[in-house]
């Protein structure tokens, strides 16, 4: 298993670890619930350095990206980002990505850890006819996510952030900027790429740090964030947070056998582009027979991934993710349901017990702005 640069920091903070996408990652430091609530109420700090990152540049970088992914990265202005799908030739989902236009003509493409190799191979194969360079920078950068309503204050509370911090309050969601971090003694002087993105449903930032400086930045964030309620948070909290926010997770809501329209992501696919991988297959395909919807139940018992969704005695779908929502206090789930059953009376078969569920709009949780 791979370890991030911050592994020893997590050990010192008392983390328990779990294997995720080939990496040994902190699943929790103290309590899943406490970390979840910390992110909703104040802020949480996540090490997400396991994510795969590729830098893409060269004379035909934008043409390549428009061909390689579902949307139009060529329309991403400098300092902006877009959520994208990497489609297979068959129109399935190889991975979901964020593409940042971080420097003039240079992009970073961020993919899921577990899909690192599949994404790397797809990018390489698709680049054959383009003048483009694809650098795998996964092992050069650490990625630290600062998430929660007090994230902005926490960044502003760090005296060593001396350049690029001025405009941070006005930074829009899905944009990014470089900030210079210079410690008081001058020993640490590094440029960070700070993006207002995240996977929790809260305001927050994802910070790209060259590996050599990751420990220092992680400690600085915790030190200056503590008085504002910041706590380190693990993958368990990250999963319950993203689920409440209705965000898909690869392997659950997304996969090679999933049609983008089934998971309400057709808006990310630009059929008006001349050509892109997956276009022909998607245009030729029938509309998907299932659709991703939100479900809620009463009580404390949660539908879990893989449990059948029933209409009477008939299986009409499957739960993709589910949990007793820490914020809402009732069970929530996302499920892929036969289109003709999405408004029917549904139950989830919880290991032999039928749990009544009702359809609700996604996301389950939306932050107050």
């Amino acid at each position, binding site marked *: 298993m791979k370890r991030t640069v911050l592994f020893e920091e997590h050990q010192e903070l008392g983390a*328990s670890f779990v294997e995720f996408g080939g990496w040994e990652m902190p*699943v*929790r430091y103290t*309590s*899943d*619930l406490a970390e*979840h609530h910390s992110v909703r109420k104040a802020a949480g700090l996540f090490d997400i350095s396991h994510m795969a990152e590729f830098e893409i540049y060269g004379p035909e970088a934008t043409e390549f990206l428009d061909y390689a992914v579902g949307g139009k990265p060529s329309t991403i202005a400098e300092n902006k980002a877009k959520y994208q799908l990497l489609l297979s030739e068959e129109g399935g989902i190889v991975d979901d990505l964020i593409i940042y236009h971080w420097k003039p003509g240079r992009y970073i493409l961020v993919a899921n850890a577990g899909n690192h190799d599949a994404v790397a191979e797809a990018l390489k194969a698709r680049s054959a006819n383009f003048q483009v360079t694809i650098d795998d920078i996964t092992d050069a950068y650490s990625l630290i996510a600062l998430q929660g309503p007090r994230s902005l204050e926490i960044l502003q509370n760090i005296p060593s952030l001396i350049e690029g911090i001025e405009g941070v309050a006005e930074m829009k969601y899905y944009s990014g900027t470089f900030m210079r971090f210079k410690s008081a003694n001058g020993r640490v002087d590094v440029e960070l790429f700070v993006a207002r993105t995240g996977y929790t449903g809260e305001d927050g930032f994802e910070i790209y740090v060259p590996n050599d400086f990751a420990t220092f930045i992680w400690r600085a964030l915790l030190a200056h964030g503590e008085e504002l309620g910041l706590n380190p948070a693990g993958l*368990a909290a990250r*999963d*319950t947070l993203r689920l409440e926010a209705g965000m898909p997770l690869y392997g659950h809501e997304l996969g090679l056998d999933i049609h983008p329209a089934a998971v309400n992501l057709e808006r990310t696919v630009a059929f008006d582009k001349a050509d892109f991988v997956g276009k022909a297959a998607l245009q030729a395909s029938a509309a998907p027979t299932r659709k991703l919807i939100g479900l809620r139940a009463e009580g*404390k*018992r*949660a539908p*879990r991934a893989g449990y059948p969704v029933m209409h009477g005695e008939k299986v009409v779908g499957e739960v993709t993710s589910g*949990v*007793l929502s*820490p914020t809402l206090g009732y069970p929530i789930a996302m499920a892929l349901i036969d289109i003709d059953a999405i408004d029917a009376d549904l139950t989830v078969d919880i*290991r032999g017990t039928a749990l009544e569920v009702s359809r609700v709009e996604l996301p389950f949780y939306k932050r107050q702005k």
Partner: protein
Amino acid sequence: MSAPSNLKYSTDHEWVLFDGDVATIGITQFAADQLGDIVYLDLPKVGTMIKAGTIVGEIESTKSVGELYTPADGEVVELNQDAVDAPDTLNSDPYEAGWLIKVKLSDPSQLDSLLDEASYNAHIGA
């Protein structure tokens, strides 16, 4: 998180406390820590006859579902309603307030194969 010495343990991470032919059963601190924050318990009703090695209940955390096995045959004579009402008790006090069920044993000798504290600690690598 060493396990207490007055209890016996199963390899499935249950602990057992004997009082004559009645066994009190719970899960170990190790099991609770592995599950994370416990939010739901499904325990067998009083009067249920349970069989050794079978799943008799479920322990859900935010992250996963754990199964409760019974190490011996018997009849459930009491369940811990306080723990059902406040499942996080299993995280904070798994060996005392977080007990789960009491079972009147049909054949106490079934429990001879349980682990003592040292063997259990070795089993979990503590």
